[in-house]
């Protein structure tokens, strides 16, 4: 059974689009400043190493510059063996500090996972290259494939753990979703005491509380989608179909529960849907059609 990375499937313009957009996502998901001075509840790497030094504003500023340089090198594919681990360490280190305040955030986790997957893919590719020379393109194709797999894994794990955490009873509990909608509506309100949308959210929450079976059916579709996440890897058409379904799923949840998971959506778009590829294909199809119509 061969690993699903060959033959090369991504044209150069698409690989460039993926590198530039992923580098941007890594940059914006790595805070340049953290407004904390300690790590009261160490998490992840901070359980092994004291990362308090990463709360120093001056050091963070330097690290952000280093991250910018590393991501620049990643985009132009120079010294990737150095750029990828440096970017990974900075991204994971700073986000670990944020996650060590007693509250675990899950918004950026998918970005770090994809970066980890790309770094691992790069070094695995280099190791394979030592045994039998391989092209730079095949190295990058593996990085893309592993990043796609990381995105699929993030969703698949979310689906599996829903079933594990509730002993399979998640669907039956989904009828109480109204309670969560109510909670998130008020949590959003208390962030800035902004009443915009509060009444609408509360009305949706009460509607959901009163229509349990309908809500359970909708939530069941979401769970099914998460468990089907590995199918996104089976080809571009599956990626387009399920990727768009995931984005729609996030947008609908976001409008109801104020939980946008924007980095999840961005990574699905960058690595799974890849809109630039489909735009180019549409353009080519359109040009071909025009040629056929206008030719004598």
């Amino acid at each position, binding site marked *: *059974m*061969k*690993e*699903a990375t060959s033959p090369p499937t991504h044209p150069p313009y698409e690989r460039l689009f993926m590198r530039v957009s992923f580098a941007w996502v890594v940059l914006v998901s790595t805070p340049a400043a953290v*407004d904390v001075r*300690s790590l009261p509840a160490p*998490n*992840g*790497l901070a*359980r092994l190493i004291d990362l308090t030094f990463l709360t120093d504003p001056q050091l963070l500023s330097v690290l952000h510059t280093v991250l910018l340089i590393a991501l620049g090198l990643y985009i132009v594919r120079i010294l990737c063996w150095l750029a990828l681990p440096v970017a990974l360490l900075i991204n994971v280190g700073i*986000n670990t500090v944020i996650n060590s*305040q*007693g*509250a*675990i*955030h*899950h918004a950026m*986790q998918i970005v*770090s*996972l994809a970066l980890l*997957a790309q770094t691992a893919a790069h070094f695995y590719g280099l190791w394979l290259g030592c045994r039998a020379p391989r092209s730079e393109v095949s190295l990058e194709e593996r990085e893309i494939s*592993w990043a796609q*797999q*990381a995105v699929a*894994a993030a969703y*698949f*794990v*979310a689906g599996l*753990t*829903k079933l*594990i*955490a509730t002993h399979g009873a*998640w669907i039956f509990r*989904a*009828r*109480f979703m*109204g*309670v*969560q909608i*109510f*909670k*998130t509506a*008020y*949590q*959003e309100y*208390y*962030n*800035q*005491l902004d009443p915009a949308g509060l009444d609408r959210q509360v009305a949706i*929450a009460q509607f959901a*509380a*009163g229509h*349990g079976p309908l809500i359970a059916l909708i*939530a069941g579709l979401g769970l099914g989608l998460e468990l089907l996440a*590995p199918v996104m*890897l089976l080809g571009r058409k599956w990626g387009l179909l399920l990727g768009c379904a995931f984005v729609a799923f996030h947008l609908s*949840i976001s409008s109801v*529960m104020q*939980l946008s*998971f924007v980095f999840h959506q961005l990574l699905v778009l960058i690595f799974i849907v890849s809109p630039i590829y489909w735009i180019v294909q549409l353009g080519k199809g359109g040009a071909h059609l025009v040629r056929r119509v206008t030719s004598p």
Partner: protein
Amino acid sequence: MAAGLFHRLRLREGLRHFWRLFHPRRWPALFGLTVLCLLLQENYPFSDFPMYSSFAKNSYYIYLADGKGEALGTNQFGLTTPGMKKIFESKRRAAIRKDITAQEQDPFWADRAAGAALLRYLEGLPAVQRQVPSLLPGLEVRRVNLLWKAGRVEATTRIVAQRP
């Protein structure tokens, strides 16, 4: 009969095809990261967090209020309301782990302990120390309990901790 049906529906072939499509060697990162997330649980960047999963009949959130009982925006403290609730909950669990007997004798004990610990945490935040006038005098932590009851969500509010 079951074997015949199995054969007729070509289930064996279907399962073989499925196994070939999703063989772990074909998708090493998918399987590797799935296993790591499940084993390492909540250790950044790994997570076994089931997004949108906590669908219980009851839940709660917390918010802050000043000495006059007026609600305060959580962003003023450099936090978000869900983030602050997670900090409160982790302190509440720590308090229960430390002294389960106290919680058994008084069901509000862990809430009070977590509220007091949260107030101490807030005092140390740079965003709070920068605020003039100070947000701290009379600061209250309020807990709103939510309960699904006969197709409606009901809410009740309680003060769990207050600074002098």
